[in-house]
Protein backbone atom coordinates (compact mmCIF):
# COMPACT_ATOMS: atom_id res chain seq x y z
CA UNK A 1 0.00 0.00 0.00
CA UNK A 2 1.02 3.57 -0.53
CA UNK A 3 -0.88 6.79 0.02
CA UNK A 4 -1.57 6.85 -3.75
CA UNK A 5 -3.79 3.80 -3.35
CA UNK A 6 -6.25 6.01 -1.49
CA UNK A 7 -6.46 8.53 -4.33
CA UNK A 8 -8.88 8.54 -7.25
CA UNK A 9 -6.42 10.73 -9.19
CA UNK A 10 -8.35 11.06 -12.43
CA UNK A 11 -11.21 13.09 -10.98
CA UNK A 12 -9.72 15.76 -8.70
CA UNK A 13 -11.02 19.14 -9.76
CA UNK A 14 -10.17 21.52 -6.94
CA UNK A 15 -8.58 24.84 -7.88
CA UNK A 16 -4.81 24.66 -8.33
CA UNK A 17 -3.12 25.85 -5.19
CA UNK A 18 -6.17 25.47 -2.96
CA UNK A 19 -5.29 24.08 0.45
CA UNK A 20 -7.95 21.41 0.00
CA UNK A 21 -5.42 19.55 -2.15
CA UNK A 22 -2.91 19.43 0.74
CA UNK A 23 -5.66 18.44 3.18
CA UNK A 24 -6.74 15.63 0.90
CA UNK A 25 -3.29 14.22 0.14
CA UNK A 26 -2.27 14.53 3.80
CA UNK A 27 -5.39 12.58 4.78
CA UNK A 28 -4.49 9.86 2.27
CA UNK A 29 -0.92 9.73 3.64
CA UNK A 30 -2.19 9.39 7.21
CA UNK A 31 -4.67 6.66 6.24
CA UNK A 32 -1.77 4.82 4.62
CA UNK A 33 0.59 5.36 7.53
CA UNK A 34 -1.97 4.09 10.02
CA UNK A 35 -3.02 1.27 7.64
CA UNK A 36 -6.67 2.29 7.77
CA UNK A 37 -7.91 0.48 4.70
CA UNK A 38 -11.25 -0.09 6.37
CA UNK A 39 -12.08 3.62 6.12
CA UNK A 40 -15.38 5.05 4.94
CA UNK A 41 -15.30 8.72 3.96
CA UNK A 42 -18.46 10.77 4.41
CA UNK A 43 -18.66 14.25 2.96
CA UNK A 44 -21.31 16.91 2.69
CA UNK A 45 -21.99 19.42 -0.08
CA UNK A 46 -19.66 22.09 -1.44
CA UNK A 47 -16.07 22.19 -2.70
CA UNK A 48 -14.87 20.13 0.27
CA UNK A 49 -17.84 17.80 -0.10
CA UNK A 50 -16.56 16.75 -3.49
CA UNK A 51 -13.77 14.95 -1.61
CA UNK A 52 -15.91 11.82 -1.29
CA UNK A 53 -15.48 10.89 -4.92
CA UNK A 54 -11.73 11.67 -4.80
CA UNK A 55 -10.97 8.93 -2.28
CA UNK A 56 -10.41 5.46 -3.68
CA UNK A 57 -12.58 3.93 -0.93
CA UNK A 58 -16.24 3.29 -0.18
CA UNK A 59 -17.54 6.82 0.26
CA UNK A 60 -20.81 8.62 0.93
CA UNK A 61 -21.37 12.05 -0.56
CA UNK A 62 -24.21 12.86 1.80
CA UNK A 63 -26.81 15.62 1.94
CA UNK A 64 -25.88 19.23 2.63
CA UNK A 65 -25.09 19.52 6.32
CA UNK A 66 -25.77 15.89 7.13
CA UNK A 67 -22.34 14.29 6.88
CA UNK A 68 -21.99 13.98 10.66
CA UNK A 69 -25.26 12.13 11.38
CA UNK A 70 -24.71 9.94 8.30
CA UNK A 71 -21.22 9.10 9.60
CA UNK A 72 -22.60 8.46 13.10
CA UNK A 73 -25.07 6.00 11.59
CA UNK A 74 -22.31 4.20 9.67
CA UNK A 75 -20.04 3.98 12.72
CA UNK A 76 -22.81 2.83 15.08
CA UNK A 77 -23.98 0.18 12.65
CA UNK A 78 -20.44 -1.10 12.04
CA UNK A 79 -17.99 0.01 14.78
CA UNK A 80 -15.11 -1.81 13.03
CA UNK A 81 -15.03 0.83 10.30
CA UNK A 82 -12.82 3.92 10.53
CA UNK A 83 -15.26 6.71 9.69
CA UNK A 84 -13.96 10.10 8.54
CA UNK A 85 -16.04 13.17 7.68
CA UNK A 86 -14.36 15.51 5.20
CA UNK A 87 -16.32 18.70 4.59
CA UNK A 88 -16.39 22.47 4.79
CA UNK A 89 -17.42 25.06 7.36
CA UNK A 90 -20.66 26.01 5.56
CA UNK A 91 -21.71 22.39 5.58
CA UNK A 92 -20.53 21.39 9.06
CA UNK A 93 -20.95 24.60 11.05
CA UNK A 94 -23.84 26.42 9.34
CA UNK A 95 -26.56 24.14 7.98
CA UNK A 96 -25.16 21.16 9.90
CA UNK A 97 -24.21 23.01 13.08
CA UNK A 98 -26.67 21.22 15.33
CA UNK A 99 -25.21 17.84 14.45
CA UNK A 100 -21.72 18.99 15.44
CA UNK A 101 -22.96 20.01 18.92
CA UNK A 102 -24.52 16.63 19.52
CA UNK A 103 -21.91 14.37 17.93
CA UNK A 104 -19.35 16.09 20.18
CA UNK A 105 -21.64 15.68 23.19
CA UNK A 106 -22.26 11.99 22.46
CA UNK A 107 -18.55 11.57 21.75
CA UNK A 108 -19.36 9.69 18.51
CA UNK A 109 -16.21 7.81 17.52
CA UNK A 110 -15.62 9.60 14.20
CA UNK A 111 -13.03 12.04 12.85
CA UNK A 112 -14.24 15.30 11.33
CA UNK A 113 -11.92 17.29 9.04
CA UNK A 114 -13.31 20.76 8.45
CA UNK A 115 -12.09 23.08 5.70
CA UNK A 116 -12.69 26.53 7.21
CA UNK A 117 -12.40 28.64 4.06
CA UNK A 118 -14.40 31.72 5.15
CA UNK A 119 -17.03 31.41 2.39
CA UNK A 120 -19.59 29.26 0.69
CA UNK A 121 -17.12 28.68 -2.14
CA UNK A 122 -19.00 26.59 -4.67
CA UNK A 123 -22.01 28.92 -4.67
CA UNK A 124 -19.88 31.94 -5.49
CA UNK A 125 -18.62 33.31 -2.19
CA UNK A 126 -21.35 34.15 0.29
CA UNK A 127 -20.43 34.75 3.94
CA UNK A 128 -20.05 31.56 5.97
CA UNK A 129 -19.71 30.91 9.73
CA UNK A 130 -15.93 31.30 9.51
CA UNK A 131 -15.92 34.57 7.57
CA UNK A 132 -13.81 37.01 9.59
CA UNK A 133 -15.34 40.20 10.99
CA UNK A 134 -15.06 42.87 8.31
CA UNK A 135 -14.56 40.28 5.55
CA UNK A 136 -15.98 41.24 2.14
CA UNK A 137 -18.18 38.59 0.53
CA UNK A 138 -21.13 38.52 -1.87
CA UNK A 139 -23.51 38.78 1.07
CA UNK A 140 -21.39 41.16 3.15
CA UNK A 141 -20.33 43.79 0.57
CA UNK A 142 -19.80 46.37 3.32
CA UNK A 143 -17.83 43.95 5.48
CA UNK A 144 -19.04 41.15 7.74
CA UNK A 145 -20.61 42.62 10.88
CA UNK A 146 -20.75 39.30 12.72
CA UNK A 147 -17.87 37.54 14.45
CA UNK A 148 -16.55 34.28 13.03
CA UNK A 149 -17.68 31.16 14.82
CA UNK A 150 -15.42 29.81 17.54
CA UNK A 151 -15.51 26.01 17.44
CA UNK A 152 -12.87 25.37 20.09
CA UNK A 153 -15.06 26.05 23.15
CA UNK A 154 -18.04 24.28 21.53
CA UNK A 155 -16.13 21.03 21.08
CA UNK A 156 -14.01 21.24 24.23
CA UNK A 157 -16.86 22.03 26.61
CA UNK A 158 -17.59 18.31 26.75
CA UNK A 159 -16.11 15.86 29.24
CA UNK A 160 -14.06 14.16 26.52
CA UNK A 161 -12.89 15.99 23.45
CA UNK A 162 -10.35 16.37 20.67
CA UNK A 163 -9.94 19.70 18.91
CA UNK A 164 -7.08 20.59 16.57
CA UNK A 165 -6.50 23.73 14.59
CA UNK A 166 -4.03 23.74 11.73
CA UNK A 167 -3.46 25.08 8.21
CA UNK A 168 -2.23 23.73 4.87
CA UNK A 169 0.71 26.13 5.21
CA UNK A 170 1.96 24.06 8.16
CA UNK A 171 2.16 20.64 6.46
CA UNK A 172 3.93 18.72 9.23
CA UNK A 173 1.51 20.07 11.79
CA UNK A 174 -1.41 19.26 9.50
CA UNK A 175 -0.23 15.64 9.29
CA UNK A 176 0.30 15.47 13.05
CA UNK A 177 -3.24 16.77 13.70
CA UNK A 178 -4.80 14.31 11.25
CA UNK A 179 -2.79 11.39 12.67
CA UNK A 180 -3.71 12.13 16.27
CA UNK A 181 -7.34 12.71 15.30
CA UNK A 182 -7.60 9.33 13.56
CA UNK A 183 -5.92 7.62 16.53
CA UNK A 184 -8.20 9.34 19.02
CA UNK A 185 -10.98 7.12 20.38
CA UNK A 186 -14.00 9.38 20.36
CA UNK A 187 -15.13 12.50 18.56
CA UNK A 188 -12.19 14.30 16.93
CA UNK A 189 -12.55 17.64 15.18
CA UNK A 190 -9.75 19.06 13.02
CA UNK A 191 -10.29 22.61 11.85
CA UNK A 192 -8.11 23.51 8.88
CA UNK A 193 -7.90 27.27 8.35
CA UNK A 194 -7.76 27.67 4.59
CA UNK A 195 -9.28 30.88 3.15
CA UNK A 196 -10.61 30.37 -0.37
CA UNK A 197 -8.33 32.47 -2.57
CA UNK A 198 -10.86 32.58 -5.42
CA UNK A 199 -14.11 33.58 -3.75
CA UNK A 200 -12.85 35.10 -0.50
CA UNK A 201 -9.26 36.09 -1.12
CA UNK A 202 -9.82 38.13 -4.27
CA UNK A 203 -12.26 40.36 -2.41
CA UNK A 204 -9.97 40.68 0.61
CA UNK A 205 -6.46 41.30 -0.78
CA UNK A 206 -5.19 37.73 -0.49
CA UNK A 207 -5.99 36.69 -4.02
CA UNK A 208 -3.36 34.08 -4.93
CA UNK A 209 -2.39 30.74 -3.37
CA UNK A 210 1.01 32.25 -2.59
CA UNK A 211 -0.55 35.18 -0.73
CA UNK A 212 -2.77 32.77 1.20
CA UNK A 213 0.27 30.68 2.21
CA UNK A 214 2.15 33.78 3.30
CA UNK A 215 -0.88 35.02 5.22
CA UNK A 216 -1.26 31.67 7.01
CA UNK A 217 2.48 31.34 7.78
CA UNK A 218 2.75 34.87 9.15
CA UNK A 219 -0.51 34.91 11.07
CA UNK A 220 -0.55 31.54 12.83
CA UNK A 221 1.90 29.98 15.29
CA UNK A 222 1.98 26.43 16.60
CA UNK A 223 1.36 26.33 20.32
CA UNK A 224 1.34 23.67 23.05
CA UNK A 225 -1.21 25.66 25.02
CA UNK A 226 -4.34 23.90 26.30
CA UNK A 227 -6.43 26.85 25.16
CA UNK A 228 -5.64 28.19 21.71
CA UNK A 229 -5.70 31.93 21.10
CA UNK A 230 -7.17 33.08 17.78
CA UNK A 231 -3.78 33.04 16.03
CA UNK A 232 -2.57 29.76 17.52
CA UNK A 233 -2.53 26.27 16.05
CA UNK A 234 -2.42 23.17 18.19
CA UNK A 235 -4.11 20.08 19.53
CA UNK A 236 -6.15 20.06 22.71
CA UNK A 237 -7.68 16.84 23.90
CA UNK A 238 -9.01 14.86 26.81
CA UNK A 239 -9.50 11.21 25.89
Amino acid at each position, binding site marked *: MSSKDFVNEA*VIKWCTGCGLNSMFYSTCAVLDELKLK*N*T*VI*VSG*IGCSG*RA*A*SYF*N*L*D*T*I*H*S*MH*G*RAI*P*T*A*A*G*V*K*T*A*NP*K*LNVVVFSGDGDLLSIGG*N*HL*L*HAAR*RNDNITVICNSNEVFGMTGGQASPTTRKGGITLTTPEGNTANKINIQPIVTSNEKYFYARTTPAHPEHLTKCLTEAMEHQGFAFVEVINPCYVNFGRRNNISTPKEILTYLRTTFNISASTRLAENQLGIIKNA
Partner: protein
Amino acid sequence: MKNLITGNEAITKGLIKSGLKFFSAYPITPSSQILHSLIKSKVTHIIAEDEIAAINMVIGASLAGSKAATATSGPGFSLKQESIGYAFKTNTPLVIVNAQRVGPSTGMPTYSSQGDILAVKHGSHGDYVNIVFYPNSVEECYRYSIEAMNAAEESLSPVILLTDGMLSMMTESVDLKGIKVEIKKRDFKPLGKEKRKISGLLTKDNLPCTTEPKVYQEWYAERKAQILNTSKKYEFYEYSGNKKSDTLLIAYGTTSRVISELKNEYAIFRPIRLFPIISKLKTIAESYKKIVVIEMNDSQYQGELQSFLHRELQSITQLGGELSLNKIKNELKRLC
Protein backbone atom coordinates in the same frame (compact mmCIF):
# COMPACT_ATOMS: atom_id res chain seq x y z
CA MET B 1 -51.66 -16.64 22.67
CA LYS B 2 -53.35 -13.29 22.44
CA ASN B 3 -51.89 -10.21 24.07
CA LEU B 4 -53.14 -6.66 24.50
CA ILE B 5 -50.77 -4.33 22.67
CA THR B 6 -50.91 -0.94 20.96
CA GLY B 7 -50.39 -0.16 17.29
CA ASN B 8 -47.03 1.39 18.12
CA GLU B 9 -45.94 -1.71 20.05
CA ALA B 10 -47.03 -3.91 17.16
CA ILE B 11 -44.93 -1.80 14.77
CA THR B 12 -41.95 -2.14 17.10
CA LYS B 13 -42.35 -5.91 17.22
CA GLY B 14 -42.91 -6.07 13.47
CA LEU B 15 -39.77 -4.09 12.74
CA ILE B 16 -37.73 -6.28 15.07
CA LYS B 17 -39.20 -9.40 13.46
CA SER B 18 -38.26 -8.01 10.04
CA GLY B 19 -34.60 -7.99 11.06
CA LEU B 20 -34.23 -4.36 12.18
CA LYS B 21 -30.67 -3.73 13.36
CA PHE B 22 -30.60 0.06 13.68
CA PHE B 23 -33.16 2.64 14.77
CA SER B 24 -32.92 6.35 15.30
CA ALA B 25 -35.69 8.83 16.06
CA TYR B 26 -36.51 12.15 17.68
CA PRO B 27 -39.38 12.24 20.18
CA ILE B 28 -42.78 13.19 18.75
CA THR B 29 -46.25 12.10 19.78
CA PRO B 30 -47.99 9.87 18.72
CA SER B 31 -44.98 7.87 17.47
CA SER B 32 -42.68 8.17 20.50
CA GLN B 33 -43.84 4.88 21.97
CA ILE B 34 -42.00 3.09 19.14
CA LEU B 35 -38.79 4.78 20.29
CA HIS B 36 -39.53 3.90 23.94
CA SER B 37 -40.03 0.22 23.12
CA LEU B 38 -37.09 -0.08 20.75
CA ILE B 39 -34.50 1.27 23.18
CA LYS B 40 -35.42 -1.64 25.49
CA SER B 41 -34.67 -4.12 22.68
CA LYS B 42 -31.36 -5.35 21.32
CA VAL B 43 -31.65 -3.06 18.30
CA THR B 44 -28.73 -0.60 18.08
CA HIS B 45 -30.08 2.92 18.35
CA ILE B 46 -29.23 6.59 18.64
CA ILE B 47 -31.63 9.12 20.16
CA ALA B 48 -31.18 11.76 17.49
CA GLU B 49 -30.75 15.47 18.11
CA ASP B 50 -33.38 16.25 15.49
CA GLU B 51 -35.58 14.69 12.84
CA ILE B 52 -33.10 15.28 10.03
CA ALA B 53 -30.28 13.68 12.02
CA ALA B 54 -32.48 10.66 12.73
CA ILE B 55 -33.13 9.82 9.10
CA ASN B 56 -29.56 10.53 8.03
CA MET B 57 -28.26 8.23 10.78
CA VAL B 58 -30.66 5.62 9.42
CA ILE B 59 -29.30 6.19 5.90
CA GLY B 60 -25.70 5.78 7.12
CA ALA B 61 -26.54 2.67 9.13
CA SER B 62 -28.45 1.11 6.26
CA LEU B 63 -25.56 1.67 3.84
CA ALA B 64 -23.21 0.23 6.46
CA GLY B 65 -25.17 -3.03 6.41
CA SER B 66 -28.03 -2.77 8.91
CA LYS B 67 -31.71 -2.98 8.20
CA ALA B 68 -32.79 0.40 9.54
CA ALA B 69 -35.86 2.48 10.36
CA THR B 70 -37.11 5.69 11.94
CA ALA B 71 -40.48 6.85 13.24
CA THR B 72 -42.09 10.27 13.39
CA SER B 73 -45.27 12.29 12.95
CA GLY B 74 -46.24 14.98 10.42
CA PRO B 75 -44.02 17.89 11.55
CA GLY B 76 -41.03 15.55 11.71
CA PHE B 77 -41.96 13.93 8.45
CA SER B 78 -41.77 17.31 6.72
CA LEU B 79 -38.20 17.65 7.97
CA LYS B 80 -37.26 14.27 6.53
CA GLN B 81 -38.44 15.04 3.01
CA GLU B 82 -35.06 15.96 1.50
CA SER B 83 -33.61 12.72 2.87
CA ILE B 84 -36.37 10.68 1.21
CA GLY B 85 -35.19 11.95 -2.17
CA TYR B 86 -31.59 11.23 -1.17
CA ALA B 87 -32.44 7.65 -0.15
CA PHE B 88 -34.33 7.18 -3.44
CA LYS B 89 -31.33 8.50 -5.38
CA THR B 90 -28.78 6.42 -3.49
CA ASN B 91 -30.72 3.10 -3.44
CA THR B 92 -30.85 3.11 0.36
CA PRO B 93 -33.43 0.78 1.91
CA LEU B 94 -35.14 2.10 5.03
CA VAL B 95 -38.56 2.34 6.66
CA ILE B 96 -40.15 5.57 7.90
CA VAL B 97 -43.17 5.29 10.17
CA ASN B 98 -45.38 8.38 10.07
CA ALA B 99 -48.08 8.41 12.77
CA GLN B 100 -50.23 11.23 11.42
CA ARG B 101 -51.76 13.97 13.56
CA VAL B 102 -53.75 17.09 12.71
CA GLY B 103 -51.67 19.73 10.91
CA PRO B 104 -50.53 21.98 9.39
CA SER B 105 -47.81 22.98 11.84
CA THR B 106 -48.22 21.84 15.43
CA GLY B 107 -51.93 21.69 14.66
CA MET B 108 -53.99 19.65 17.12
CA PRO B 109 -51.55 17.41 18.92
CA THR B 110 -52.25 14.66 18.92
CA TYR B 111 -55.68 14.22 17.38
CA SER B 112 -55.82 11.73 14.58
CA SER B 113 -55.51 12.75 10.95
CA GLN B 114 -54.75 11.46 7.50
CA GLY B 115 -53.37 14.77 6.36
CA ASP B 116 -50.01 13.56 5.05
CA ILE B 117 -51.20 11.50 2.08
CA LEU B 118 -49.84 13.95 -0.48
CA ALA B 119 -46.75 14.68 1.62
CA VAL B 120 -45.68 11.04 1.64
CA LYS B 121 -46.06 10.82 -2.12
CA HIS B 122 -44.85 14.19 -3.36
CA GLY B 123 -43.03 15.94 -0.50
CA SER B 124 -39.42 15.59 -1.58
CA HIS B 125 -38.06 17.66 -4.44
CA GLY B 126 -37.53 16.33 -7.95
CA ASP B 127 -39.14 13.23 -9.43
CA TYR B 128 -39.32 10.02 -7.46
CA VAL B 129 -41.62 7.11 -6.77
CA ASN B 130 -42.09 5.32 -3.48
CA ILE B 131 -44.05 2.58 -1.76
CA VAL B 132 -46.48 3.52 1.01
CA PHE B 133 -48.51 1.19 3.27
CA TYR B 134 -51.32 2.06 5.67
CA PRO B 135 -52.69 -0.68 7.94
CA ASN B 136 -55.97 -0.35 9.85
CA SER B 137 -55.58 -2.59 12.91
CA VAL B 138 -52.97 -3.43 15.51
CA GLU B 139 -52.48 -6.84 13.94
CA GLU B 140 -51.92 -5.21 10.57
CA CYS B 141 -49.44 -2.73 12.10
CA TYR B 142 -47.29 -5.77 12.88
CA ARG B 143 -47.77 -7.46 9.52
CA TYR B 144 -47.18 -4.39 7.38
CA SER B 145 -44.13 -3.26 9.35
CA ILE B 146 -42.53 -6.49 8.19
CA GLU B 147 -43.83 -6.03 4.65
CA ALA B 148 -42.57 -2.42 4.64
CA MET B 149 -39.07 -3.58 5.57
CA ASN B 150 -39.26 -6.36 2.97
CA ALA B 151 -40.36 -3.90 0.28
CA ALA B 152 -37.60 -1.46 1.26
CA GLU B 153 -34.94 -4.15 1.07
CA GLU B 154 -36.25 -5.47 -2.21
CA SER B 155 -36.69 -2.09 -3.93
CA LEU B 156 -33.63 -0.51 -2.25
CA SER B 157 -35.71 2.52 -1.43
CA PRO B 158 -37.35 4.39 1.45
CA VAL B 159 -40.73 2.79 2.24
CA ILE B 160 -43.30 4.63 4.32
CA LEU B 161 -45.62 3.01 6.84
CA LEU B 162 -48.49 5.35 7.67
CA THR B 163 -50.58 5.19 10.79
CA ASP B 164 -52.61 7.84 12.57
CA GLY B 165 -52.90 8.89 16.18
CA MET B 166 -55.80 6.53 16.83
CA LEU B 167 -54.20 3.51 15.22
CA SER B 168 -50.83 4.09 16.88
CA MET B 169 -52.31 4.40 20.37
CA MET B 170 -55.15 1.88 19.97
CA THR B 171 -54.93 -1.27 22.08
CA GLU B 172 -56.14 -4.56 20.64
CA SER B 173 -55.85 -8.20 21.54
CA VAL B 174 -53.73 -9.99 18.97
CA ASP B 175 -51.78 -13.21 18.56
CA LEU B 176 -48.60 -12.02 16.85
CA LYS B 177 -47.04 -15.48 16.81
CA GLY B 178 -49.87 -16.62 14.59
CA ILE B 179 -48.89 -14.07 11.92
CA LYS B 180 -46.43 -15.55 9.46
CA VAL B 181 -44.67 -13.23 7.04
CA GLU B 182 -41.58 -14.25 5.11
CA ILE B 183 -38.56 -12.06 5.87
CA LYS B 184 -36.54 -10.66 2.99
CA LYS B 185 -32.78 -10.94 3.50
CA ARG B 186 -30.38 -8.03 3.09
CA ASP B 187 -29.04 -8.36 -0.43
CA PHE B 188 -26.19 -5.90 -0.95
CA LYS B 189 -22.69 -5.61 0.44
CA PRO B 190 -22.16 -3.24 3.36
CA LEU B 191 -19.79 -0.29 3.14
CA GLY B 192 -16.10 -0.78 3.80
CA LYS B 193 -15.35 -3.50 1.29
CA GLU B 194 -15.50 -1.88 -2.13
CA LYS B 195 -14.79 1.42 -3.83
CA ARG B 196 -18.34 2.60 -4.29
CA LYS B 197 -19.27 6.24 -4.60
CA ILE B 198 -22.63 6.75 -2.95
CA SER B 199 -23.83 10.20 -3.91
CA GLY B 200 -26.88 12.38 -4.22
CA LEU B 201 -25.34 13.59 -7.48
CA LEU B 202 -26.15 11.92 -10.75
CA THR B 203 -23.27 9.53 -11.39
CA LYS B 204 -21.97 7.51 -14.31
CA ASP B 205 -19.34 4.78 -13.95
CA ASN B 206 -19.01 5.62 -10.25
CA LEU B 207 -18.16 9.28 -10.98
CA PRO B 208 -20.29 12.44 -10.78
CA CYS B 209 -22.00 13.14 -14.10
CA THR B 210 -24.14 16.25 -13.89
CA THR B 211 -24.34 17.53 -17.46
CA GLU B 212 -25.83 14.69 -19.48
CA PRO B 213 -29.66 14.62 -19.71
CA LYS B 214 -29.55 11.18 -21.35
CA VAL B 215 -27.72 9.67 -18.38
CA TYR B 216 -30.37 11.11 -16.07
CA GLN B 217 -33.23 9.86 -18.23
CA GLU B 218 -31.84 6.33 -18.37
CA TRP B 219 -31.08 6.28 -14.65
CA TYR B 220 -34.55 7.57 -13.75
CA ALA B 221 -36.39 5.14 -16.02
CA GLU B 222 -34.49 2.22 -14.56
CA ARG B 223 -34.94 3.35 -10.95
CA LYS B 224 -38.66 3.98 -11.43
CA ALA B 225 -39.13 0.57 -13.03
CA GLN B 226 -37.21 -1.08 -10.20
CA ILE B 227 -39.60 0.31 -7.60
CA LEU B 228 -42.79 -0.19 -9.64
CA ASN B 229 -41.82 -3.79 -10.42
CA THR B 230 -41.04 -4.54 -6.80
CA SER B 231 -44.32 -3.00 -5.70
CA LYS B 232 -46.22 -5.59 -7.75
CA LYS B 233 -45.26 -8.16 -5.13
CA TYR B 234 -46.97 -6.02 -2.51
CA GLU B 235 -50.46 -5.53 -3.96
CA PHE B 236 -52.27 -5.29 -0.64
CA TYR B 237 -55.91 -4.22 -0.61
CA GLU B 238 -59.36 -5.35 0.48
CA TYR B 239 -62.43 -5.23 -1.67
CA SER B 240 -65.95 -6.19 -0.73
CA GLY B 241 -68.20 -5.95 -3.78
CA ASN B 242 -71.90 -5.21 -3.47
CA LYS B 243 -74.23 -6.02 -6.36
CA LYS B 244 -77.10 -4.13 -4.74
CA SER B 245 -75.17 -0.87 -4.79
CA ASP B 246 -74.01 1.34 -7.64
CA THR B 247 -71.68 3.17 -5.24
CA LEU B 248 -68.14 2.24 -4.27
CA LEU B 249 -66.73 3.69 -1.06
CA ILE B 250 -62.95 4.06 -0.83
CA ALA B 251 -61.30 4.49 2.55
CA TYR B 252 -58.04 3.49 4.20
CA GLY B 253 -56.47 3.32 7.66
CA THR B 254 -58.68 4.11 10.65
CA THR B 255 -61.39 5.61 8.42
CA SER B 256 -61.82 2.28 6.64
CA ARG B 257 -62.32 0.66 10.02
CA VAL B 258 -65.17 3.02 10.89
CA ILE B 259 -67.00 2.69 7.58
CA SER B 260 -66.66 -1.11 7.41
CA GLU B 261 -70.14 -1.44 8.91
CA LEU B 262 -71.61 0.13 5.77
CA LYS B 263 -70.64 -2.92 3.72
CA ASN B 264 -74.19 -4.18 3.43
CA GLU B 265 -75.29 -0.97 1.77
CA TYR B 266 -72.24 -0.13 -0.34
CA ALA B 267 -69.25 -1.73 -2.00
CA ILE B 268 -66.00 -0.89 -0.20
CA PHE B 269 -62.45 -0.74 -1.47
CA ARG B 270 -59.62 -0.39 1.04
CA PRO B 271 -56.11 0.13 -0.27
CA ILE B 272 -53.45 -1.06 2.18
CA ARG B 273 -50.71 -0.08 -0.24
CA LEU B 274 -51.65 3.54 -0.91
CA PHE B 275 -48.83 4.15 -3.38
CA PRO B 276 -48.24 3.13 -6.08
CA ILE B 277 -52.05 3.11 -6.39
CA ILE B 278 -53.40 -0.46 -6.70
CA SER B 279 -53.86 -1.03 -10.45
CA LYS B 280 -56.79 -3.45 -9.92
CA LEU B 281 -58.83 -0.46 -8.79
CA LYS B 282 -59.26 0.50 -12.44
CA THR B 283 -61.27 -2.65 -13.17
CA ILE B 284 -63.14 -2.55 -9.88
CA ALA B 285 -64.15 1.08 -10.46
CA GLU B 286 -65.77 0.21 -13.80
CA SER B 287 -68.61 -1.60 -12.02
CA TYR B 288 -69.74 1.48 -10.10
CA LYS B 289 -71.58 4.57 -11.22
CA LYS B 290 -70.48 6.55 -8.23
CA ILE B 291 -67.27 6.48 -6.19
CA VAL B 292 -66.96 8.24 -2.84
CA VAL B 293 -63.57 8.66 -1.16
CA ILE B 294 -63.84 9.09 2.61
CA GLU B 295 -60.76 10.39 4.38
CA MET B 296 -59.56 12.49 7.32
CA ASN B 297 -58.12 15.27 5.15
CA ASP B 298 -59.29 17.78 2.55
CA SER B 299 -59.72 15.27 -0.33
CA GLN B 300 -56.03 14.39 -0.76
CA TYR B 301 -56.36 10.77 -1.91
CA GLN B 302 -59.52 11.60 -3.84
CA GLY B 303 -57.46 13.95 -6.02
CA GLU B 304 -54.83 11.29 -6.61
CA LEU B 305 -57.49 8.72 -7.51
CA GLN B 306 -59.28 11.12 -9.86
CA SER B 307 -56.18 11.49 -11.98
CA PHE B 308 -55.49 7.76 -11.71
CA LEU B 309 -59.00 6.74 -12.79
CA HIS B 310 -59.60 9.69 -15.15
CA ARG B 311 -63.07 10.33 -13.75
CA GLU B 312 -64.77 12.52 -11.21
CA LEU B 313 -65.04 11.10 -7.69
CA GLN B 314 -67.06 12.29 -4.72
CA SER B 315 -65.37 13.20 -1.47
CA ILE B 316 -66.32 13.07 2.20
CA THR B 317 -63.84 14.79 4.44
CA GLN B 318 -63.42 14.42 8.18
CA LEU B 319 -61.31 17.23 9.53
CA GLY B 320 -59.86 18.42 12.83
CA GLY B 321 -59.53 14.97 14.36
CA GLU B 322 -63.20 14.15 13.95
CA LEU B 323 -64.28 10.74 12.68
CA SER B 324 -68.06 10.32 12.91
CA LEU B 325 -69.94 7.48 11.26
CA ASN B 326 -73.21 9.41 11.62
CA LYS B 327 -71.84 12.39 9.76
CA ILE B 328 -70.43 10.11 7.07
CA LYS B 329 -73.85 8.42 6.72
CA ASN B 330 -75.59 11.77 6.37
CA GLU B 331 -73.11 12.92 3.77
CA LEU B 332 -73.59 9.66 1.86
CA LYS B 333 -77.38 10.21 1.84
CA ARG B 334 -76.82 13.64 0.36
CA LEU B 335 -74.39 12.37 -2.29
CA CYS B 336 -76.09 9.11 -3.30
